[in-house]
C-alpha cells in the first residue's frame, strides 16, 4: 500500500484539499503512466493470463479488445486493484505498485467505470457522485455542503447530464444512469480512466457526448483505457490498441491509424473473418401479431405484425419502450388491453408466458444473468426448461429423452466446449447466450422468436454464430423479432426496422438502411 499512496493525494487529507485537488494532475503527453509487464494470473489450474503486457501513456486513448475468456476482464481487475497478479509487475509512473483493494487504486488515481452499473438506486444523485469518498473516508459526511453541491453540479455539467441532485437514482433512465456513472468517474482526480464497455446502453447522442468528454480529458493529460467489443467505436475514439487472446497480447499498443480492422478481428479470433452481407430469406404469411396493445392505461397503442421467415428489427434507445414491446410480443408483459395472436389464434392472457410457450413463442430476455439463466445448473437443464412437459414418458421425466433432444439442440448452436453437463456458470457470455437460443429453438412447434439484445456482451466469434443461427431459423419459417441497440446487427439482419420512440412506433425503415439512418430515426427530430 505504501508505494501507491505516494503518487496521489492522500485520501485522508481534509476535504478542502480533496476538493482543491480536483484538477487532473498534468502529465506531459506521452509520459508512461502505467506499465504492466509479463502479467500471469492463475486461478487454481486455469491460467487466465499467461504473460500480458500493457503500456498506458498520458493523453492517449488506448483500446483493449479480445474475445471473452481472452483475459480482458482479469487484466482490468488487476489494474484497478480488484485482483492481484500471480506474477509480473505493475508500475505506476515508474514506481512498482501492488494494490490491496479497489479503494487503494482509486486513491492512486486509477478510476474504474464498469459495464454493469455501480450506482446505488436507494441513494440520490448527489450521494452517488460522492460514493468513492464515502467508501474510503471516515467521519461525518459533509456532501450536503454548498461547496460540495457546486462541485457535484460541475461534474454533471461536464458530461451534459441534466438531472436534479436530490433525485433518487432509481428514478433515472438507463442512459442517464450510465452517464451519471461516467460523470462520477470523470469528476475524480484521475490519472488513468478505465472504461469497461461504457456505451453498452447509450444512445448515439450520449455516446458522442462521452467521446467529447474523453477527448477533453486526454488533451488535459489523462490516460484512458477503453475496453469494448464495438469495432466502429474503437475506430472513432482510440489512438492505440492492444488485443488479447488466450491470455497473451497478440497486438500490443499498435497505433490504430496503421492497423486495419481486419487484422484486429483476426487477431482476436485467430482466423480471418468475413463480415459480409447476409442474404435474407423470403417473407411469408403473418405469424405473430400484437393488436392494439396498451401496456398501461394512457400508453400509446402498439400494433405489430411479424411474418414467417421475417426478421423484424425493433430499434429504440434505452428507455424508449423497445424492450417492453419485445416483452409484449413474447407474451411476458401483462397489458391493460389488446391481443396477442399466433397464426390468428389468440394466445391466452397477455403476460402468460406459459400460454405463449404453448403457442410456440420463444423469448430471449435482455438481461441473461437475471432473467435467462439458471445458475448452479448445467447447460442441459438450462436448455430443457421450456419443454419439460414434452420430455415425459408415462408422466415421468425421461433423462434420456432430455439428453438426446437437447444435446442435439446445443450442438446445433455450436456450444463450445460442447459439454452440456457442465455448469452454465462456467461458459462464456456468448455460449450462455447460445444456450438460451437453443432453449427457445427447442420449443415444440416453435413459430416465433423474440430476441432482445441477443449479442450484448458477446464476443465476435459467438456473435457471428448466433447471427447465422438466427438466419437459419428464419429460413426454416420462424417469425423473428429482433430488439437491439446494435446498429450493425439490426441493419445486416433485418428485413425491415421498426423505430420506437417515447413508447410508440414512429417509423419503419427498409432493408439495408444505413446505421446512421437508423440512429437518427431513433433520435427523432434534432435535439
Amino acid at each position, binding site marked *: 500500500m505504501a508505494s501507491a499512496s505516494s503518487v496521489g493525494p492522500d485520501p485522508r487529507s481534509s476535504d478542502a484539499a480533496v476538493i482543491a485537488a480536483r484538477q487532473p494532475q498534468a502529465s506531459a503527453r506521452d509520459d508512461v503512466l502505467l506499465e504492466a509487464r509479463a502479467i500471469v494470473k492463475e486461478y*487454481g489450474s486455469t491460467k487466465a493470463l499467461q504473460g500480458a503486457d500493457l503500456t498506458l501513456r498520458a493523453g492517449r486513448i488506448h483500446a483493449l479488445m479480445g474475445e471473452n475468456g481472452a483475459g480482458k476482464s482479469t487484466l482490468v481487475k488487476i489494474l484497478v486493484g480488484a485482483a492481484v497478479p500471480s506474477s509480473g509487475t505493475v508500475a505506476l509512473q515508474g514506481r512498482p505498485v501492488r494494490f490491496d483493494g479497489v479503494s487503494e487504486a482509486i486513491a492512486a488515481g486509477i478510476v474504474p467505470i464498469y459495464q454493469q452499473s455501480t450506482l446505488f438506486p436507494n441513494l440520490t444523485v448527489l450521494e452517488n457522485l460522492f460514493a468513492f469518498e464515502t467508501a474510503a473516508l471516515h467521519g461525518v459526511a459533509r456532501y450536503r455542503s454548498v461547496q460540495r453541491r457546486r462541485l457535484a453540479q460541475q461534474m454533471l455539467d461536464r458530461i451534459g447530464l441534466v438531472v436534479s441532485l436530490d433525485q433518487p437514482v432509481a428514478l433515472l433512465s438507463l442512459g442517464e444512469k450510465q452517464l451519471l456513472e461516467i460523470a462520477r468517474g470523470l469528476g475524480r482526480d484521475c490519472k488513468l480512466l478505465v472504461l469497461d464497455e461504457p456505451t453498452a446502453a447509450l444512445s448515439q447522442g450520449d455516446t458522442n457526448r462521452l467521446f467529447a468528454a474523453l477527448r477533453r480529458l486526454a488533451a488535459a493529460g489523462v490516460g484512458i483505457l477503453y475496453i469494448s467489443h464495438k469495432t466502429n467505436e474503437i475506430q472513432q475514439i482510440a489512438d492505440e490498441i492492444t488485443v488479447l487472446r488466450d491470455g497473451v497480447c497478440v497486438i500490443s499498443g499498435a497505433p490504430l491509424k496503421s492497423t486495419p480492422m481486419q487484422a484486429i478481428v483476426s487477431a482476436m479470433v485467430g482466423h480471418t473473418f468475413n463480415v459480409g452481407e447476409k442474404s435474407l430469406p423470403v417473407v411469408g404469411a403473418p405469424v405473430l401479431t400484437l393488436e392494439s396493445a396498451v401496456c398501461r392505461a394512457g400508453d400509446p397503442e402498439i400494433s405489430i405484425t411479424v411474418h414467417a421467415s421475417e426478421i423484424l428489427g425493433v430499434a429504440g434507445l434505452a428507455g424508449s419502450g423497445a424492450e417492453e414491446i419485445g416483452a409484449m410480443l413474447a407474451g411476458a408483459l401483462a397489458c391493460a388491453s389488446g391481443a396477442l395472436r399466433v397464426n390468428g389464434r389468440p394466445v391466452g392472457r397477455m403476460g402468460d408466458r406459459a400460454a405463449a410457450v404453448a403457442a410456440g413463442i420463444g423469448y430471449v430476455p435482455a438481461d441473461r444473468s437475471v*432473467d435467462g439463466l439458471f445458475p*448452479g445448473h448445467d447447460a442441459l437443464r438450462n436448455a430443457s426448461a421450456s419443454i*419439460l*412437459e414434452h420430455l415425459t414418458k408415462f408422466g415421468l421425466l425421461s433423462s434420456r429423452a432430455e439428453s438426446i433432444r437437447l444435446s442435439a439442440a446445443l450442438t446445433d448452436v455450436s456450444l463450445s466446449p460442447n*459439454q452440456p453437463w457442465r455448469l452454465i456458470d462456467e461458459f462464456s457470455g456468448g455460449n450462455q447466450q447460445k444456450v438460451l437460443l437453443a432453449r427457445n429453438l427447442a420449443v415444440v412447434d416453435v413459430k416465433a422468436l423474440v430476441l432482445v439484445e441477443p449479442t450484448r456482451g458477446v464476443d465476435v466469434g459467438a456473435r457471428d454464430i448466433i447471427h447465422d443461427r438466427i438466419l437459419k431459423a428464419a429460413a426454416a419459417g420462424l417469425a423473428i423479432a429482433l430488439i437491439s441497440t446494435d446498429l450493425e446487427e439490426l441493419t445486416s439482419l433485418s428485413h425491415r426496422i421498426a423505430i420506437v420512440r417515447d413508447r410508440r412506433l414512429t417509423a419503419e425503415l427498409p432493408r439495408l438502411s444505413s446505421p446512421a439512418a437508423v440512429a437518427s430515426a431513433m433520435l427523432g427530430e434534432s435535439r
Partner: protein
Amino acid sequence: MTMGRLAGSKLLQRLPVSIWVLALIVVVFALFLPGFARIENLTNVLRVGAILALASYGQAIVLISGGIDFSIGSSVALCSVTTALAIQQWPLGLALTVGFASIIAVGAINGLLVAYLKLSPFLVTLGMLLLVHGFAAIAAGGLPVEVPDREGIHTLSGGGLLGVPYPVLIAALAAVALHVLFERTTLGRSWFLIGSSRPAAEATGIRLRRNIFLAYVLAAAFVGVAGLILTSRVAAGEPNLYPTLPFETMAACAVGGIPLTGGRGSALNAVIGVIVIAVLNNAIVLLNFPAYAQLALLGAIMVGAVIAQGVPSWTRLARIRSL
C-alpha cells in the same frame, strides 16, 4: 451438494460431500462410544430420526423452490390438537384424517400467501408460527387434550414390520417418493429452476404461482405424515408438541447439503442431514450431556457444516469465467 456431472463420471464422484462426513461420524462413534453400536440403540436413532426426516423432506421441498418454512412446529402441534379433539367423537381413522387435513390447511395458507400474494416466505411462515400456535392453544383450552385410550392409537408410531418400526419404513418410502418427485416430475424439476432464478423460470413458461403453491402443499403432506406419527406417539393434543422442529429441519437440510438460497438439493441430502443430526443427538444423550449442551452443539455443528460445504465453491467461484 451434488457436484455437476463430470465427463465419464463414476457413481462415487456423484455422491454428496455430506455422506463422507456421516460415514466418518458413524465410524468414530461405533469405535469409541460405548453403547452406540448396539442394535437397540441404532434402531432407536432411526425411529427418532424418522419423524425429523419426514418433516425435513417437507422443508427440503420448500427450500429448493426458494422459500422457507418456520411454521412446521406449530402445524404438527395443531395436528395433535385437532386429532385429539376429533377422536372424542369420531373413530380413529377419521380423527387422524382431520389432523392430517389441518396440516395441509396450514400449508395451503402458506402457499397462497407466498405464491399468489407474493409475500416473503420468511415473514409469512413466522407469522403463521404464532398464529397457528395460538390457535392450537386456544382450541386445546390451554392444556394438553387428553385422549381416551383407543385401540390402535399407538400402532403407527410403535408398531413395526419384521422388527423395523413403521415410522422408519414410512420415512424410507417417503424418501423414495421425494426422490421421484425431484428427479422425475416436471413439477419437481420446476422447483429447482424457480429456486435458481425466479424471473428466468417465468420467462421459460413455468407456471410460477401454481408450482410454488404446490411446493408448500406437498411439503405439508410430508409434514402431515410426521405429524400423524408424533400424534400417535404422544396420544394427546399438545400445543407445545415440537417447537424446535422447524430449526431442526433447517439444520438437517443445511448439514445435508441443501443451501437455503434454493435451487439445489436432493432427497439423499435430506436423509443424510437427518441421520447426522440424529446420530449427534444420540451421542449427546449417551454421553450424558445436559440439554443446553445439546442446543449449543447443534448450533455449532450446523454452522460448521455449512461453512465446510462452502469451501469447495470458493475455489469454483474463482474458476468461473467472468463476462
